């Protein structure tokens, strides 16, 4: 049973292999939990589909997106929004685990503590692969027509996944910091609405009033959405926003991973 442990600096430590192993066990646990709740899966698919239909058929006709059809404009935005919503469950789940005592159990085991966080965020990422796939299929059914080569579409998909992974860590930090599940529920969602709506996700930012527009232009969501638009339906160069979006994501990850680990130690 002593595998995965080395002695360094006079104390026992876990090897990188042990951290990886434990993360895999924790991700497996989380996926198994999710698969056991089929109604939860169905609803997590239905919500974004409803968003697509609402925007496509209700707001769509009233929003002028110039030469680009609204559905082509909308889909990259709504895919990114779905990725964020999919990431928000991370924080809620962790708050639940802290409340139920499962986290105490795990932290008292000779396992890698970081594996609890890595396992959870990776499992949520895997779920998001499925949710986003459903979204894309629905998008294609309502008229979304990507024009760019396959490698670019693949790159767009990976960018959205990276984005969702980063937001999982932000959500984890919020969940662990507020602790109370009800508070986590509202604290986890409120910041997402201004962030997604004050971006280029649903409407061109050119129509927004000055200060909002300035915010939207620097909003990382705008950068990711613009990059995904460029990579899928063409238009203005995708490379600029994509590079800036990646820089944003890296910076956010560097900030929120240590913050989350710190919050987890105290939870």
């Amino acid at each position: 049973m002593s595998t995965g442990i080395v002695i360094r600096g006079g104390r026992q430590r876990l090897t990188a292999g042990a951290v990886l192993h434990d993360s895999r066990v924790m991700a497996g646990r989380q996926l198994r939990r999710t698969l056991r709740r089929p109604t939860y899966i169905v609803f997590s698919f239905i919500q974004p589909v409803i968003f697509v239909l609402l925007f496509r058929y209700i707001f769509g006709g009233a929003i002028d997106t110039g030469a680009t059809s609204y559905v082509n404009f909308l889909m990259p935005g709504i895919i990114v929004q779905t990725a964020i919503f999919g990431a928000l469950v991370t924080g809620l789940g962790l708050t639940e685990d802290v409340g139920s005592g499962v986290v105490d159990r795990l932290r008292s085991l000779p396992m890698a503590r970081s594996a609890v966080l890595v396992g959870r965020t990776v499992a949520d990422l895997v779920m998001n692969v499925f949710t986003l796939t459903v979204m894309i299929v629905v998008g294609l059914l309502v008229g979304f027509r990507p024009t760019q080569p396959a490698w670019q579409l693949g790159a767009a998909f990976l960018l959205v996944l990276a984005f969702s992974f980063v937001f999982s860590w932000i959500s984890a930090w919020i969940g662990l910091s507020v602790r109370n599940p009800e508070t986590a529920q509202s604290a986890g969602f409120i910041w997402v609405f201004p962030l997604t709506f004050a971006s280029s996700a649903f409407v061109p930012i050119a129509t927004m009033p000055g200060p909002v527009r300035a915010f939207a232009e620097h909003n990382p969501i705008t950068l990711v959405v613009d990059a995904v638009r460029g990579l899928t339906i063409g238009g203005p160069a995708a490379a600029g926003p994509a590079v800036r979006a990646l820089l944003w994501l890296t910076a956010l990850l560097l900030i929120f991973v240590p913050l989350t680990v710190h919050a987890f130690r105290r939870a």
Partner: protein
Amino acid sequence: MNTYTDPIEVVDLAVSYGRVTALDGLGLRIAAGTVLGVLGPNGAGKTTLIRVLSTLLRPTRGTARVMGHDVVADPLPVRRSIGLAGQYAAVDQELTGRENLEMVGRLYRLPRAEARRRAGEILERFDLSGAADRRVGTYSGGMRRRLDLAAGLTGRPPVLLLDEPTTGLDPRSRQELWSIVDELRDAGTTVLLTTQYLDEADRLAQRIAVIAAGTVIAEGTPDTLKAGIGTDILHLHLPEPAALATAVPLLADLAAAGTTVTADPVSGDLTVHVSRPDASAEALRRLDRHGVTVATIQLTRPSLDDVFLSLTGRSATAVPEEAR
């Protein structure tokens, strides 16, 4: 540092959360293969002590060692030495009992097949085989608590930390848990058990530490603790209340310091807080010698509740909620 004498050694431990002091200079040690009952009301610091020993919480001051390993400086071997189970039943409700135990086994980095075998073995032992493949959410409180304990034992820990393991359980589940603790101790496991049930500490523990306001206020075997405050109470019923006039002076010097022989001239009842263990027999001999007939004899021992009351000046139940 592996030079140690006892599996658990706690010296001058203090924990404060902001202005709240949960532990305040607590010290104790537990001999290998014995059960120490940590007895105290809510808010005394029992859960905080468990959280420090299980590396969940860093103390503000003092040291705690488990199997010779410092909980702060070298937490990993501490975690490999302990099993933790408690009142909150920390098992995953969405998974089955078997899946819970297999997961814990794999987090001890047992190979998959070995983790599966071990889970089956513990489920069998804890009488959970029949429910092994049901979601834990469908378990009764007692089953959940057994599974929680089973999870704590997956790594075959030499030290077991039990935080109020029977709080909220029905009497039958309590008995079951008690016999499991007995078995574990017989097998050589060292157990620290917190409880606010006095009968539980009396039943399970070889030694008891009474804690209040974050520190140990009394420590000893259940019997010495009881002896410390006194003493047995002898209740006698005389069929002839008139004989009390003879009986009371005969027994006066057997009463413990500060107590007197009380007699009810109407019913013929007589009560003595006897000063020494052999005083009851002496009382009966004297009465017999002087021709006083005794109809019924009853000897009651002080409960640990009485111990608590005499140590703290207040009842064990009249203390505010525990600050976690």
